[in-house]
Structures are given as C-alpha cells and as structure tokens.
C-alpha cells in the first residue's frame, strides 16, 4: 500500500501553495455558506425566497434537470 501512495505522489505536483491555501479557502467558504444560509432563512421567514436550485448533493436525481429558462449560459 505504501508503494501505491508514494507513486501517486509522483503522479503530478499538487503545488504546496495550493495545498496550504485550502484551509483558508475552506474557512472563507464556510463563512460565505453560513451567511448565505442565514440570509436564506431570514428571507424565507418573510416569504421572499424562490425554490432553491439543485445543489452539489443532488445525485442520481435523474441527472438534475433544470427549467429551460435557467439554462441559457449566454
């Protein structure tokens, strides 16, 4: 097993900077997600929310089908 992992580390350079920065990125992401969620709750309290789109957890999901009006990327 050790042989396997040591070879994986030779596979490509993940970049030390990119590995180190993830803790900060994740912390910022946590704050953004928390505040978005908080705002969503506030808005839903006042009945101002639209139905939420499919998120990252939506799997199998007959492959997330969206409404056509949400799909025009440009």
């Amino acid at each position, binding site marked *: *097993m050790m*042989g*396997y992992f040591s*070879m*994986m580390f*030779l*596979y*490509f350079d*993940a*970049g*030390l*900077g*990119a*590995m*180190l*920065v*993830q*803790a*900060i*990125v*994740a*912390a*910022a*992401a*946590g*704050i*953004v*997600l928390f505040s*978005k969620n908080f705002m969503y709750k506030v808005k839903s309290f006042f009945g101002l929310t639209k139905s939420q*789109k499919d*998120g*990252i*957890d*939506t*799997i*199998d*999901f*007959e*492959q997330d*089908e*969206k409404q*056509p009006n949400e*799909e*025009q*990327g*440009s």
Partner: protein
Amino acid sequence: MKSKAHRHQASFRDPSGYIVRDGSVVKRVINPIYFPVYDALCKADFFSPLFKAKMLIPHVEQERSAEAIVLMPDQIDLMTYPYEWSFEQYKQAALLTLKLQNFALDRDFSLKDASAYNVTFHRGKPVFIDTLSFDFYQKDSPWRAYKQFITHFFGPLVLAHFHGAEALKMMQTHIDGIPVALVASMLPKRTKLSPTLYTNIHLMAKMEAKHKDEYTPKSRSIKLSKQSLRNLLRSLYNYIDQLELMQQTEWGDYYNKTNYQPESFIFKKEQIQKWIAGNGARKILDLGGNDGTFARAIDSDIDLAVVADVDHNAVALNYAQVKANKEVNMLPLWFDVTQPSPAIGWVNLERESILNRLSAWGPEAVLALAVIHHMTLSANIPFADSAQFFARLSPLLVIEFPKRDDSWVDSLLQRKREFINHFDHYHQENFEKAFEEHFKILEKVNIPGSDRILYLMHSRQ
C-alpha cells in the same frame, strides 16, 4: 498484455492504468498498482449509482489477471475537448467534477485529479470518462486535485465570465490548465473583494509564488477536515452554478436575422430531410450548423448529429435546446472551419486534432449550409481547397451555394472594397467545376424565393 502496443498517447500520465485501442474499440487497462483502489470501489458499489445517473461512463470488467484488469467502457462517438465547448457546457463539466468529488468523499474516496479532459459530452450530457481518477480519501488531507480544478475549470470559467467565452480557447495553449497567476493578473481589481475569487484565485496565486521552490511544509503537516473540504467544494459549486457570461447574447433567435423567406426555409428543411433519409445517413456533421435547426429538422433515425459552429452564441443556443429537450443524438461543437483545433500535448498526439477525431468518427453525410460564401469570401479559401476538404470528411455532401445576387454574398463582396474584382471567381460555374473534381453532383435544386442552390454530391474518393 499484447494490446499494450496500441496504447493511446493521451494516457501516459497516470500510473494507475492506460487506454488501449483494440481496432476501433477503446478499452481501459488497470495496472496492479491500482488494483486495491479498484477492488475497494467495486466492493463499495461506488460505480453503479454513477452509471445510473449517467455521470460516469459505464464499463464492464472484461478480463482479469495478475498483470492487468481490462475494462470495456461504453464507447464515446466523438471526443470533444474543453476548448470546443460553449460556456454552459464547460460549466456543466465543472459542476459534474465537483459533484463527483462530493459523492466520492461521502464514500471515503477522493478524485486524485480534476483535469477538464476527464469529462466529455456523450448522449447529450457531460460524462466523466476517467474511471481510474478515484483514490482512497486520506483522513484530514486537503484535496490534491484542488489546484488542477482551479486551473482547468474555475480559472477558465471566471475568465470567460469577465472577458467572454473566447477566454476558454486559452485551454488550447495550456494543456495543464491556465496558470493561477495568469488568471489572477487578468481579473479586474474588484475581484479581490469577492471572498470566493480572492481566496481561490488571488490568494492561491500568492501562496503558489511564495512556496514555488518548496515541496514539503516546513513546520506542521497540512490538515483539512472533511467538513472544511465539503465547504470548499460547496462554495465552488454554488459560485460556478450562478456564473454567466457578461457579454450580451447577440441574438435570441438566429434565424430571424437571416435573409430567408419562410417558404425558402421550409423548402430547404424538407429537401435536406429527403436527401439524408433517402441515403440512410445516420451520422451527420453539420458544419456552420448554427443552433442545430436544420439538423433537428431531419426526422429520420439519426445516431448522432455533430453541429459545429464558429459562433459561440449559436453553440450555446444549441446546447440549451439539447439540455431542455433531453436530446441524446445532438452534439454541439464550437468549431472554426478555418482554424480547426490542432493536435496538442506530448509529441502532438496527446490531444488529437478535431479533423482527425472527426475522420475517425466517420460522418456519413456533411451538411454545409450557408457556409461556402463565408469560406470563400471571408476566409479567401479557393473552391479547389474547400472541395478537397469536404471530400476528405465524408462521402456525402449537402452544400448550399448562395449566388452572387444573394444579399449576404453582396454584402461580403462590398466589404472587399477596391479588391472586389479579385473575387470575380465567385460564381456558380467555378464552384461546380472545382467541386466536380472531387464529387459527383447527384442533384441540384434552386431554393424558391432565394438566390441560393442546394446540391447533393457524392465524393469520388
């Protein structure tokens, strides 16, 4: 195994296995070093929900020995690369990659790479094709493929958001993704105020520059909890999901801007349908196919219509229809006939040129509607060369020739100003003469209410 001789040039990077071509069939060979992961994935029933959701290309195990496991995946008709996708296609490929990583984490696995080349479009949807990209998740470890996700997906998408879809074409000159420092330098200063863009791009660029000569952390080991990693993924997902191009769409309905009368339009549709169905062509390449209107008009049994266009908006509109109607036999391709995507990467074989890929796929008919005047008058390609080009692509050609009196041709000619006389060769007679060198003209019809002629030709090759 003996098929090693046909190892595909794109699969030398990963020690876990490689791709082989067995005749026209593509297979995946797993090296013993990856057996523990593959067996654990099978045991965890990792693959089947992903097959069912059409997120991962389905495969069956075909052979197993001490030296190799051979997987037989569903075959992809035509591989398309990131620089041939519209913005929305690119976005969906990025979201798929994040979903897969999230799914993998739930089961204690992790994507060990996040290359945009791991995704292609198959039966109307983005699908992950690199089955060997999954690895064991190591407790509290950061995501090794994070930087690759940023350079292959997040960076290009963010650049396209600010600078237009053309930014995605930069992937053609950066096979390992667009360097973070380059992305950072191209973003407006105000992006430093966005927590997502600041951390994922600007701060990452700084950290990369600071640690570029180090390989291991000086003090403590790098740790990141699974929940933190999930937050990172979720925040990238949400950001990409709401990302749109800033440039305005030039037209909502392309065909409102053309010079067709309704009866010409209907005639053209019916004639194409008749010729394609009559010749039993099931693999169609529509060059300059706009949003796929004419390819969709063919209501006979089509296996796949690849609809290529130089205009990003047309490709985007086409993909929007593919998605909305859940079409499985339409593949939108962002393609410039005057500069088709070249072969790139190691020995120029790692990523094949689009012309090689098209020719391997082997379209049974090519549609070239309202294209030849642009090729001849905008790109100055002589008829002899365009005829040869089409003859190499497919045995059957449906080509529309707008005569000199056509309003579009006239406008293209007027733009030549004092050089207008250099284009006197643009005539029906010269066109037919040059094309007859390579094709037999089977039928030709005038399109009523227009100055255009529709030809059905068969290659002499």
